[in-house]
C-alpha cells in the first residue's frame, strides 16, 4: 500500500529525513516513533504530497509522489489528521465537514449520508449546527477525525492524534483508531506516545532522521532488548556471582539483592541459574523474565543513536 525507498529531505544543510525505506501493507497500522525533530511530520507531509522530497521515492496505492498528476490523485485517496486539528472555528461542525467533503468531490447525496454517519458515530450529530469554536478539545479532535474520513480514504495519516488531549479524550481517540483498524484501513501514525503505539500499531518504526529500527512491538523488544532474567536473592555473594559467570553469563547487573542477567534462552538457562545459586548457598526469593516495554526499547535505541 505504501512503499518508501531511500526517501531523503533536506532543508538547506539540515537533513530532516535521511534515506528512509519501508513498506506498509494494506490494512496495517504503522506507527512512526521518534523525538521532536526526528522527521516524522516531514515524512507524512512528503507522503501526502504536501512538500517535495530531495531524493528517493514513495508509492502510495500505486501512485508515485514523483508524478505531479499522481500527487493530486494521492491527495484524493488519503486522509490527513494533522497535529493541529485545523478546523474552521467560525463554522458549524456540519459546515466544516461539508466544506472538506466538497473539496474531496464527494457527490451531494453521499456527502450528506457520510457526514451524518460520521457525526453520529462520533456522538457529534446533536451538535452538528453548533459553531466549532465552542467545542472542547476532545470534540474538536473527534470532528477532525470525521473530516479525515468523510471522503472514505484508503490510507489515513495521523500526526500525533492524541497530543494535548485529556485521558478520556485520548482513550476515545485510541478506541476509534482500533475500530478503524478492524475496518482494515491502512493507518500511518506519528506518535511519541509509546504506550499508544504498543496498543494500536501492528508494526512500529523508530525514526531519528534515519530509521533506527522497524518491526512489531514484540519483535523490537526481542531483537533490540535481548532476554533478561531477574533474580531476587537474600544476598548477592561473590560465590553466587562466580557460579553464574562460570555458566557463561558475563553480563550481570546488580541492584542490592536483585540480579539482572542477560541470558540466551530463559527456559533453558533459568534452571541452571537456580541450581547454581542454591549450590552457592543463596536463597532465591523470586525469579522472572524481564519483559521490557516499548518505551525501554525506544529510549535505549534513541540514546544509542544520539
Amino acid at each position, binding site marked *: 500500500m505504501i512503499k518508501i525507498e531511500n526517501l531523503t529531505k533536506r*532543508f538547506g544543510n539540515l537533513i530532516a529525513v535521511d534515506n528512509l525505506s519501508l513498506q506498509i501493507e494494506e490494512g496495517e497500522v504503522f506507527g512512526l516513533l521518534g523525538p521532536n525533530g526526528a522527521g516524522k511530520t516531514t515524512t507524512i*507531509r512528503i507522503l*501526502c504530497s*504536501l*512538500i*517535495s522530497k530531495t531524493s528517493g521515492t514513495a508509492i502510495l496505492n500505486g501512485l508515485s509522489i514523483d508524478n505531479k498528476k499522481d500527487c*493530486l*490523485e494521492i*491527495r*484524493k485517496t*488519503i486522509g*490527513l489528521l*494533522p497535529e*493541529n*486539528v*485545523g*478546523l*474552521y*472555528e*467560525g*463554522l458549524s461542525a456540519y*459546515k466544516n465537514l461539508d*466544506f*472538506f467533503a*466538497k*473539496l*474531496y*468531490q464527494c457527490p451531494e447525496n453521499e456527502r450528506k449520508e457520510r457526514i451524518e454517519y460520521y457525526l453520529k458515530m462520533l456522538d457529534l450529530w446533536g451538535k452538528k449546527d453548533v459553531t466549532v469554536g465552542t467545542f472542547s478539545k476532545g470534540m474538536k479532535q473527534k470532528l*477532525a477525525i470525521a*473530516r479525515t474520513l468523510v471522503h472514505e480514504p484508503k490510507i489515513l495519516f495521523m500526526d500525533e492524534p492524541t497530543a494535548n488531549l485529556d485521558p478520556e479524550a485520548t482513550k476515545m481517540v485510541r478506541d476509534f483508531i482500533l475500530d478503524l483498524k478492524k475496518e482494515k484501513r491502512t493507518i500511518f501514525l506519528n506518535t511519541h506516545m509509546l504506550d499508544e503505539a504498543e496498543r494500536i500499531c501492528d508494526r512500529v518504526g523508530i525514526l531519528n532522521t534515519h530509521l533506527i529500527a522497524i518491526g512489531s512491538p514484540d519483535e523490537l523488544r526481542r531483537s533490540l532488548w535481548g532476554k533478561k532474567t531477574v533474580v531476587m536473592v537474600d544476598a548477592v555473594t561473590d560465590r553466587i556471582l562466580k557460579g553464574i559467570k562460570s555458566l557463561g553469563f558475563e553480563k550481570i547487573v546488580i541492584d542490592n539483592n536483585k540480579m539482572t542477567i542477560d541470558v540466551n534462552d530463559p527456559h533453558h538457562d533459568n534452571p541452571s541459574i537456580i541450581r547454581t545459586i542454591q549450590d552457592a548457598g543463596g536463597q532465591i526469593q523470586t525469579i522472572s523474565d524481564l519483559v521490557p516495554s516499548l518505551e525501554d526499547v525506544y529510549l535505549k535505541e534513541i540514546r544509542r543513536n544520539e
Partner: protein
Amino acid sequence: MSKLNRKNVWTITTKDIGLFIKKKWILYSALILPLIISIGLPIIVWYIVNHRAVPIQLLFPVFTAFSFFFIILSAIIPTVIASYSFVGEKTEKTLEPLLATPTTDDEILLGKSLAAFLPVILMIFLSAVIFMVLMDIFTFAKVGYLFFPNWIFVIIILLDTPLACVMSIELSVIISSRVNDIRSAQQLASVVLVPFLLLYLLTEFSVITIDVNTMLIIAGILALIDIFLFLISRALFRREEILTKWK
C-alpha cells in the same frame, strides 16, 4: 497553469465569505467606509450647493475628484478581508488540512482572492450607485442635467476600482506570507493607499487632471502592477512554501 476546477474555487470562495459574514469587525470594515463615501460626500455637496454661494461650475472638478475616492476604497477594504482570509488560515492552523485536499495551489489562491474581491467590488458598485443617485438628486436643480454617470466615473468604477482591488489582494497575499497576525498584515497592506493618496493630492494641486485619458493611463499602470504582483503572489502561494517558509 494547471486546469482549474471551478467547483473547488467556488467552494473555497463561499466558505471564506461565510466566515467573513460571521466576523462582525470585517463586516463593519467593509460596510462603513463605502457608506460614508456614498452618503457623506453627497450630503456635503448638498450643503455647499444650498448654503454657500459658490458657482456650480466651480464645483465640477470637486465632484470628479470625489469619484477618485472609490479607487481608494477599493484599495483599502480588500486589505481587511484578504489579510483575514490568508493570515486567518495561518493563525487558526487550518491551512494544512486545506492543502491536503485534492485542490491545486492556484484553485486555493483564486478561491480566496475571489472571496476578498467579490464582496468588495459588490459593495463598491452598490455605493457607487447610491453616490450617483444622491449626487444627481442634490445637484440636478443647479446643474440642469444629470452629472453622473459620466465617462470618467464609468472608467473609475468599471476599470480602475477592480484593478486597484486586485492589486490590494495580491499585496495582502504577499504580506500574509511574512506575518503572523491579522492586524500587522492589515497595517502593512495599507501601504497600498500611498500611491493613490499621492495621485489624489496631485490632482488637488492640479499637477494632473482627472479626465478620461488619465483614468485610462492609471488603469493601464494598475494592470501592469497587478500582473507583476500576481506572479510574485503565485510564486509564494505554493504548498511547500506555505508549509515550510511562511512565518
